[in-house]
Structures are given as C-alpha cells and as structure tokens.
C-alpha cells in the first residue's frame, strides 16, 4: 500500500470532522448535500476511479447513511470493490453491501457472484469476509444461493479453523431464516462430529449450530449426546491451564460448557449407562468445583463459574432423575440464598422454584423454608422478594401450608402494591388447596380480606362463600367469625359482602347468643350500608330480606329499611327494584311462601378453584410456577376419603373450563354456564333458516362459539330485523364484522339498510344489530349474512342466509267464500298457478300445527269456506313498493295416501312458484 495515501482516508476524516463541527442541523444537511453532489459527479465523471477513491467515497456514503439520510446510489461502486484484492477495499465493499443493500436489489446477482468467487478463494480472509456478509444479509436468497456450499466448507478437511468457525455461525444464521437450508441425512453425522474438533472455537460455534438443529429435529441429531457429554467431561475435568485461549478468568471454556449443557437439555437423560455415568460425573464435578475456594477475586471469575453451575443445575432439573444430584443442587442453591450478590439470590430462588416441582428434591427445597421466609422479610430488592413469594408458593404442601400461608399473610401487610393482588390469589389458592380444617380456611380468607381487601378479587370471595355453603360444619363458625370481623370500626367492602352473604344464610346459627342477636346483626350490617357501593347495597338488601325469613321478630326493622327513601326511591334502578320487591314480598306473602322463596342456597356444584388459578395465570402469563399437585397422589393413596363431602379436595379437573365467572351464580350473566363450549356437543351447529319461513323470531344459527338470534317485524312492504349476536365463550370476539349483502338480482328487488356495530363482542355478551329491509319487487332469494371475527386469535367465519323472504311482506286478507272463489277463478291462467303434490313429512293429524304454519307464513286462514272441511284455504296480499300481489292458496290433504296437494295462485308467476316451492317442504 502506498505510504502517501495510507489507510487513513484523509478526505473521509475531514468530512466527518466538518459534520461534527456543524453548528446546526441545517448546516449539517448543507454539508451533506454538497458532499453527495461531489460524490455523484465523481461517480458520473469520465475518469475512472481507482480502488482507494472508490473506497473513500463508499465510506462517506456509508457514514451519511448512518447519519440517517437516504442513499440511493453507489451500490455499483461498492460491488466493484468486492472484486478488489486489497483487504481494506473488499471489507468496505462488504460492509456497504451488508448495511445498505436490500434483498430485492437488482444487483443481488452480481453480489452473489462476487461472494461465490470469494468463497472459492484460497485466501481464508476473503472467505471469512464473504461468510460474514452472507450472515449479515441472511436473506432467503442467500440461503438458496449458498445452502450447498457452506456445509461443504464447514466439514471439509482443508478449511482453516477460523473459516470453519465463521461457516458454522453463518450456517446457523441461514438456518434461522430458512430451515430447509441444511439437508438432512448425509451431513448430519459430519456436523455432529464437529463437536470433536480440535479447535475450541469451532466446537463453540458448532455447538450453537447443533443446538438450533436439534431443536428442529431432535431424533436425527441424537448422536450428539454422547459427543457432547464426552466433550463436556474433557472440559470439566481439565485444569484451567489446558485451554490457553479459551480459559476465562481461570474457568475453562465457560461459554462452550454452557452451550453443551444447554444442548443436553434438549434430550431426556441419556439411556446408555456409560454416557449417563459420565454425565453425572461431570455434573458432580461442576458442583464440586463450586465448593472450591475461588481462584480469583474478580467478578468475572465468579460470574463465569456460576454461569456454568446454573446451567448444570438446570440440566439436573431437566433430567430430574438423579435424586442425589438434585439434592446437592438444592443445597448449592441454598448457599446462594444468603449470598451477598443480589443477582445470585435471584437466580437461586428462580431455580429453586423449578426444583420444588421435582418429587426428589421437593423435601430438600423445604429445608430452606426458613431462609426463604427470611429473604421475604429482609430482602431489599423487590424482584427478589417476588421470586421468594413464587418459591414459597411452589414449595408449599400439606405439611407446611399453614406456616407458609401465615408468613405470606404477614408479608402481605408490607408487600409492594404491584404484587399484592397476585399474592392474595396465591394465598387463597394455597389455603384452599391444603386446608385440612375449614375453620382455618375461613380464617385465612377473612384475614386476607382484612389485610388486603382492595386486592381481593371477586372470585376469591365468591369462592369462600361457595365453600362455606357447601360445608355444613363451618357454617356456624363462619357466621361467628364474620360477625366478629364486621365489628371492626372500618372494614373493607369485600368483608361486608362476605359478611352480608354469610349472615343472610347462616345468621340464625349464631342468633342464640345475646351478643349476636338478630337485631344486633341487622344493626351491624346496616351500619356499614351507607358506606358501600350500590352493588354491595343490593347484596345487603337481599340479606335483609333473608333476615325477614330467618328472624320474623325483626321484620318491622327490615321493612323500615326498605321503606327508607334512599332505598325505595333510590336513583339506582336495581336498588329501587330490590327494595320495592322485597318489601312487597315481606308484607304480602305468607310465611310458607317466604320460607320457600328465601330458602337457604343449595350447595354449589363441586369444582376445583380453577377460576383462581386461571386468574393467576392471566395476571402473569408465562411466569406462573405451578404449585405441584402432590395432592393427587395423596388422594390416590387414600381413595375417596375426603372426596365427595369436601368442596376443596376434589381432585379431578373435570370442569376446568368452567371459567371464573360462574363460581357462584351471583346474578352475573355467566358465559360458560352449562352450555359452554366444552359441555356442548362438539361442533354442533344449528342453522334454522328453513324454519324461519313460518316464524319470525328465534335462534337462527348456533354453534359452540356464537349464537345468532333473529326478531322480525313487518309492516306492509317494510321489515325490520333485529339480529342478536351472543358470545357463548369466555373470550371476546375481536374484529367482529357482520356483513349483510344481497346478490345483484336480489339487490334490485329489496333495499337493505344495515346498522354498524362494534368490532368487539365481550365474553358472554350479547348485542343486537338492526337491519331494515324494504321490498321493492317480488323476489325468491335470501340475502347473505357473512360474519367474520377473531375468536381466541383464530379467524372464524359464518356464512348464512338471512330469513327475509317474500312471505314476510304478505298481509293476511279476510274474505268470504264467494269472494275467494271468484278471485280464484280470475287467476286461472296456467302461468299464474303452481301446483305441487308431495308426501307429508309431519303427521297429518296435527291440523293445528299445520294451521299455525300457514298463519306463520303470513296468510289469513279462511275457515269454513271450502266444501271439504279438511282443506286449508288461505289468502294474502304481498306488498311491494311498486305493486301489490294478491295471493291465494289451497292445501288439500289426502290422509290415506299421506300426501298433500298444494295449489297456489297469484298474479305473478314467480311468486306462485316460489311460495309453493317453499311451502311444500314445510308440511
């Protein structure tokens, strides 16, 4: 390289310093414009530029691009640079291309050719540059163009190690864009054997590649297990002096170890006992090493060491087969729990959460309960505390539930607001799951409401009530406890709700005590009444009316409350209604009726508190560590001991989907109630379009997810359809788009006017859409309803017809026999008549239903005018905007042959035919 010019590119340096010295944005833009114009004139000029100049200008363009300006030229020059033999020029060319050239550029062919040349080059630096460029662009085109060559390069014997390294990583990049780039079969074993390579760099790069390949196709790459294990054991057992370049702060090849350990987590524990033994040995060695005193005080040393250790522990947890390793891992983590380093404590807690789910180490984890609880109390970092809560939740079982719940309750008082709601749910779930004594359960939940009432969601207190109602033995205790709880000066609204409900049901159980006599109970509840929201007030009103039944002696007090203006004339319609109805109920009805109406609530259907669990999952998607269901085993050992009578230990998860809203049918319109998507027959779809010829209202269409109802009102040539869309699921419908359309022919005959609707239908909700129809002319088709929406992420479509047919515009006409037959004769042209003879589909004796159908169709049934009393004779006028079409009909049954003869006459041929075609399917 000539010394004068050097590598410095003075022009570039001057340009950059100019830009840096610009005082304002405008000045900068001016400078850039000037430079761009200069470069353009240079590129356009007749004089050919040498490599140095090209490199300089391409560099400037790159710099301008990185400043945020668009660059739309210079690509050719950059591509030219690729064919240079000088490293710096080639490098700049590749840099420009990987930064600036988009996949669909016209130059891609040229570039691909240049890269091909470089790949075939003998100079390893050129090959590496080419590989880098491929990986940086990493497009599908690149994958197609080089999918053949790179694997060859990777496994070929005479490629240098550095190149192999780049090739492995490049291949990984291409594999991520296009998994088909690596052909299965021939290459598999050769790629896997890269793990045996001499060069650690190659092994590290290959480990990443193999990890990605294994994730795609575990079976094919199974061979890598033993290789990985032996490689791992070589690293682990070696002294740190063995790998000169690959020892990081006295830890031998930490990155490679971590990658290998991760690779092994893709497979179950190795089956071959030899391999298995070696792996355990390795893991043990890693655990042993953790005990050794650190070789350096530097943070990097401990970081690298711990990285390997944590990855090893995850592998141990993943394998979940060696109890002693699990226990050792657990002990190791236990040490970290009290480590000075916050990150270590966090990681230890996180790993322990997973360990707690393994049956082998569960006991071992429990040993650290003290420490974890301590962490909860003393830890300064909120995220660590959160992990501690997670771990407590995960390690909880029958033996320690009481203690853990107690600790969590204690912590709740000081807990961060952000995690309180989650904690409340966890406490509620644990208390319910491991409750042996329901008194304890009730205590816990009431405590929960007392301590963190704001964070107790509806479902939590629904659940308490549900359990109390189902369990006779706790009812008295519950009533007593809530009564005491309510005596506090300030108690949370949720407490009032629970108290109101429970006293309303079981207040009589504690009424014997003079301290909690009926009057006192009523007074206590009513003292909270004014502070509550209207929903709670409504609940309390129900409680009061239940008191009327339970304690007739305080009836007058209760009635006073109902009569109070604030209730009987409440602005809230619900309160007003309840007050007036309850008042009437207590005043008018006899005791018997009262007792029947206000009877104790029947037991709720037994189910697991899946509602709460779902709620918890919803709160932290992907982050919920399961509390392992060891209860299942417990139940298996003592079959059906508790099941049946207990609402809590019900083990089978039959009605998981039941949703949370229907835990207690407390007047909340339930989404999944009985006819939810799971209980309903799979894929049952009802489409009732045929029935709508003879009726106006009803369910038009129904499947698992959605129900469409129709209500039709007609007046002369106008009709109005109310379409009701009901969401039967627990998920909202998104992008809900009902589209009503008519075929071209039909749109001439009727005018449709459709109201717009919201694009979202909430879970369990129903709403209506109005469709106005005007009949212009007679028609025989029906408009289409095309419904598109997203349910649970999946697009759904429903295509049905709307029940609008010509008969909706028939006005029934009354006339006597004479008039009928004279008109009948007037319409005697062959085209005006349509006759059909058909077999009866329904019993012919049911004349009432036949009549109902004819009337429902729109006709006036003219009785006693036909000589044959069995015959049905009908008349009607079809109203359209342009004209009125008279329409007469005779239906003659032949009971012996079980056939009908249907004759329709009208002034228009198409109408007669349409009516008879439709009606012949109805009888």
């Amino acid at each position, binding site marked *: 390289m000539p010394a004068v010019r050097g590598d410095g590119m003075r022009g570039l340096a001057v340009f950059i310093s100019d830009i840096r010295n610009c*005082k304002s944005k405008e000045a900068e833009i001016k400078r850039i414009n000037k430079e761009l*114009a200069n470069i*353009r004139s240079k*590129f*356009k000029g007749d004089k050919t530029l040498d490599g140095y100049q090209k490199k300089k200008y391409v560099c400037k363009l790159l710099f301008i691009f990185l400043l945020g300006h668009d660059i739309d*030229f210079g690509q050719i020059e950059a591509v030219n640079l690729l064919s240079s033999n000088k490293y710096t020029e080639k490098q700049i060319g590749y840099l420009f291309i990987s930064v600036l050239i988009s996949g669909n550029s016209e*130059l891609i062919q040229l570039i691909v050719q240049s890269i091909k040349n470089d790949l075939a080059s003998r100079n390893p630096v050129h090959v590496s540059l080419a590989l880098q460029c491929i990986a940086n662009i990493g497009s599908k085109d690149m994958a197609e163009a080089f999918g053949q060559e790179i694997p060859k390069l990777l496994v070929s014997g005479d490629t240098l190690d550095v190149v192999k390294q780049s090739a492995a990583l490049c291949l990984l990049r291409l594999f991520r864009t296009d998994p088909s780039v690596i052909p299965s079969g021939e290459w598999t074993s050769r790629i896997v054997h890269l793990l045996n390579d001499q060069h650690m760099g190659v092994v590290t790069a290959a480990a990443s590649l193999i990890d990605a390949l294994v994730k795609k196709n575990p079976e094919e790459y199974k061979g890598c297990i033993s290789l990985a294990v032996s490689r791992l054991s070589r690293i682990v057992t070696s002294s740190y002096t063995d790998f000169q370049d690959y020892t990081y702060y006295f830890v031998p090849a930490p990155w490679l170890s971590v990658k290998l350990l991760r690779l092994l987590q893709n497979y179950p524990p190795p089956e071959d006992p030899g391999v298995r033994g070696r792996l355990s040995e390795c893991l043990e060695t890693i655990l042993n090493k953790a005990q050794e005193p650190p070789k350096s005080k530097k943070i990097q040393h401990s970081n690298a060491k711990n990285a390997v250790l944590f990855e090893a522990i995850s592998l141990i947890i993943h394998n979940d087969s060696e109890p002693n390793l699990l226990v050792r891992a657990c002990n190791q983590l236990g040490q970290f729990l009290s480590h000075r380093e916050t990150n270590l404590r966090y990681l230890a807690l996180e790993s322990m959460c997973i360990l707690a789910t393994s049956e082998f180490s569960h006991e071992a984890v429990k040993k650290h309960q003290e420490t974890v609880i301590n962490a909860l109390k003393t830890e300064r970092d909120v995220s660590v505390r959160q992990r501690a809560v997670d771990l407590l939740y995960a390690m909880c079982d029958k033996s320690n539930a009481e203690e853990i719940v107690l600790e969590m309750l204690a912590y709740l008082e000081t807990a961060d607001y952000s995690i309180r709601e989650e904690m409340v749910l966890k406490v509620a779930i644990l208390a319910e799951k491991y409750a042996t004594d329901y008194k304890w359960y009730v205590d816990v939940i009431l405590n929960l409401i007392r301590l963190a009432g704001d964070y107790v969601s509806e479902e939590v207190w629904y659940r308490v009530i549900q359990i109390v109602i189902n369990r006779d033995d706790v009812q008295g205790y519950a009533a007593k406890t809530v009564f005491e709880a309510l005596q506090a000066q300030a108690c949370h609204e949720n407490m009032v709700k629970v108290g109101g409900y429970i006293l309303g049901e079981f207040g009589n159980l504690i009424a014997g005590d003079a301290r909690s006599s009926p009057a006192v109970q009523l007074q206590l509840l009513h003292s909270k009444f004014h502070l509550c929201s209207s929903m709670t007030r409504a609940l309390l009103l129900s409680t009061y009316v239940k008191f009327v039944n339970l304690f007739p002696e305080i009836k007058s007090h209760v009635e006073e409350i109902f009569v109070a203006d604030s209730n009987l004339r409440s602005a809230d319609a619900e309160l007003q209604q309840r007050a007036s109805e309850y008042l009437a109920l207590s005043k008018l009805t006899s005791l018997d009726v009262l007792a029947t109406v206000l009877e104790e609530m029947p037991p709720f259907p037994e189910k697991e508190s899946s509602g709460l669990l779902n709620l918890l999952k919803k709160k932290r998607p992907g982050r919920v560590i399961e509390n392992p269901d060891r209860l299942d085993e417990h139940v298996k050992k003592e079959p059906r001991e508790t099941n049946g009578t207990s609402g809590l230990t019900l083990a089978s998860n039959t009605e998981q989907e039941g949703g949370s809203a229907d835990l207690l049918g407390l007047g909340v319109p339930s989404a999944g109630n009985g006819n939810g998507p799971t209980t309903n027959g799979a894929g049952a779809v009802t489409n009732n379009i045929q029935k709508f010829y003879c009726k106006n209202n009803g369910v038009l269409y129904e499947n698992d997810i959605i129900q469409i109802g129709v209500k039709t009102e007609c007046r002369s040539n106008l009709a109005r359809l109310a379409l009701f869309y009901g969401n039967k699921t627990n998920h909202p419908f998104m992008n809900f788009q009902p589209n009503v359309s008519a075929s071209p022919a039909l749109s001439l005959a009727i005018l449709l006017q459709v109201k717009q609707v919201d694009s979202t239908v909430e879970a369990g909700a129903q709403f209506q859409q109005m469709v106005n129809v005007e009949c212009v002319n007679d028609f025989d088709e029906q408009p289409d309803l095309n419904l598109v929406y997203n349910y649970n992420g999946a697009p759904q479509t429903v295509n049905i017809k709307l029940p609008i047919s010509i008969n909706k515009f028939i006005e029934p006409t009354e006339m006597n026999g004479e008039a009928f037959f004279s008109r009948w004769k007037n319409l005697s042209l062959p085209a005006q008549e349509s006759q059909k003879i058909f077999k009866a589909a329904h019993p012919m004796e049911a004349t009432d239903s036949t009549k109902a159908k004819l009337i429902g169709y729109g006709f006036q049934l003219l009785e006693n005018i036909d000589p044959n009393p069995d015959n049905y004779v009908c008349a009607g006028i079809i109203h359209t905007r342009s004209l009125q079409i008279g329409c007469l009909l005779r239906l003659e049954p032949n009971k012996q042959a079980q056939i009908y003869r249907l004759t329709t006459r009208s002034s228009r041929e198409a109408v007669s035919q349409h009516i008879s075609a439709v009606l012949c399917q109805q009888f």
Partner: protein
Amino acid sequence: MIGGLFCYNHKGEVLISRVFRDDIGRNAVDAFRVNIIHARQQVRSPVTNIARTSFFHIKRSNLWLAAVTKQNVNATMVFEFLLKVVEVMQNYFGKISEENVKNNFVLIYELLDEIVDFGYPQNTDTGVLKTFITQQGVKSVTKEEQAAITSQVTGQIGWRREGIKYRRNELFLDVMEYVNLLMSPQGQVLSAHVAGKILMKSYLSGMPECKFGINDKIAMDSKGKPAEESKTKSAIAIDDCQFHQCVKLSKFESEHAISFIPPDGENELMRYRTTKDISLPFRVIPLVREVGRAKLEVKVVVKSNFKPSLLAQKIEIRIPTPLNTSGVQLICMKGKAKYKASENAIVWKIKRMGGMKESQISAEIELLATDTKKKWTRPPISMNFEVPFAPSGFKVRYLKVFEPKLNYSDHDVIKWVRYIGRSGLYETRC
C-alpha cells in the same frame, strides 16, 4: 400568564433563564432541551406539551427562545410577546446572536424585568423603554424625571413623552409589502396575497395629532366623493388590518379615519393584507424536459411586468435540481447563475432589471442512475426580488399633522413616502 422565559444557544446551553412563576421548576429548562432542541426528529410544532407544561418557542439565527407556562394561556399572545422581545433586543443591541446575548445579559435581564411582571406582558415599546433603560449603565434619574416617566408610562398616551423638540420637523413613511404567490406551470395563479406594513419614522415636536389617508375602498366610499374618485386611481380592498396602539380605533370604526399621536422615532403604524387585484411584478415560465434517464433540460424565462421606468433589484431565482444531479451546465443571458450543491438548487442572480423586460436561463442537468423508483417531486421554482412600488396598489393619499400648541403647521413638516415591494414566498411550479 407566562411562567418563564429561556434562551438557549444551538447546542442547548442556557443563556438566559428567567422564571416568573413558582409553578415552573428548574427541570423545565432541561425538559425543553431534551425534548425539543435535542429531539431525534426535528420538532416542527412551535408549541409543545411536556408533562402538562407548555413550551412556546421561536428560533432566531441559532438561538432558541422559549416561553414556558403551566396554565392555559393565549398562545398567540405568547408568540406576539416573544416576537416583541426579539424586536426589543434587536433595537437595543442589533443582531440577535449568541455573542450579543452573552455580552448584554445584564441588560436583557433588566429589560425582561421591565416588560414582564409576574408573567403578564407589560409595555414593550422600545421608544418608551429606552427612556429609562439605557445601555450606558445606570443613569441617575432626578425626582422630576422619575415622576415624568411614571406619569407617562401610566398615563393615557404611554408611548410618547411630552416636551419633545426638533429643529426640523420630519416624517418618513415606508410602505413595505411582501408578495406571496403560487403559480401553476401554465401560468395560472393558484394563490396570491400581499402582506403589507407601514413603517413610520417621526421626528416631530410637541404632541402632534396626525391624520392619515389611504386608498382603502371602504374609506373612499364612505367619503362619498365620486367626482374625485374617478380622477384618482381606483381604490383597493383591504382584507384585514391592524394598527399601532396609538391609532384611535374608535375614530377608525366610526369615520374610517386613521388619526393618531405618533410615538417618537421608528414604529410600525399599520399592518394589512390584500388578496385582490395584485399586480404581480414578475412572471416565471419554466420549461423542463427529461432527455432519457440521465439528463434533464431546464429552461426558465423571467418576465418583468411593471412600468419600464421602474427598476427591480436583488433578483434571485432558485431552481431546484433533482437529488441525483451529478453535473450542471448553465447558460444565462443576464446576471450570474451557479449550481449550489449544498442546497440542491441552481441560483440565478440578477442585480437590476427594468420593467417589461425578459431574460432566460437554460441548464443541462446530468443525472446519476439510482436504485430508487421514486420520481423526483419537482419542487417549485422560487424567486426573490425588490421593486419600488406597492404591488397591492396601496397608495398614501395624504398625511396631515396638527400641532395646536406649538407654532408649526402642516406645511412646515417635511414628509417622505417610499414604496417597497418585496417577495415573500413567490413560487412557480414546474
């Protein structure tokens, strides 16, 4: 109510910071710097809301001037105030620049204290301010002088002090107009308006009462002198106008007469806008021909369209070039033309040009092939000039001075009137 006023240099360093109200914290200074001066994208809106605090800013050369408030203020009032601050500063120390601001910051704080009180703008009239804030340091003021200043500033005619005496009573009027135009390539006027202002320099003794007459259509009609009207030039329709505070608006409302006691020295008497019957001083005729993908031929003809006796000056025509221009060859008959790469435009300058003349430039632009499919948007050709007449047709009909107390009459006053027409945004699409 303005909460505070900050002045930054182009780097965002604070030069002047004055907080008038407690609701503006120190962090507001940084908020503006971070969110507006150093914003990733250029901030276009002059009003920005950051954390319920509104920032109103203007930029002068490389300085940012920002007013801050937490209240719901009248935004136009704030901008009017900011412009006034700039005007006051210019009157005191000339060009606004970082250096000038740094050299005069004591003066600026003094001025700010005078023109704003607890966030409410006060008297911003330079003439008045100069009577008691001088650049020569603190002037010792006698009791009488102080009393005179107080009575003047708080009195009915706050803009003029009594006892002014000149040997020669002179009055200068400059009618300054800015013509704005957007024209289609075919020569169709898409939009045009004139924004004009009347600058007055008065050197008159005593408390003279002046009366000012213009050829405003309404004023002329209300006079009801059809005979005279036919003789003079036709009147013009003024769309809207606004006056200096010295003009007695009640008289303008009732009689359409502009009468006032002028402030001493230089002042803007009136601002107005017209949109009808504008005589456009120049016509630009562009001709663009694309020769293949690599070449563009541009020919632009400029025609002057006013009396041949008049002479336009400082003519500059700016022809935008495509973004992929790699070379330009220019031939022009008159003036000098140059391709300015930093601005992506050809700039053609002509020093002087008489009325009813025509000149042309032709350019060959070489283009470089690019990979973008986007077509060049062809921005309009813009033009700058100065002509010695009012393109709106505005005329000063008379200006009479009455000073009842002192013994000089209207005839003794030397009056000068000058018309200047300048280009605003004068563009022709090509």
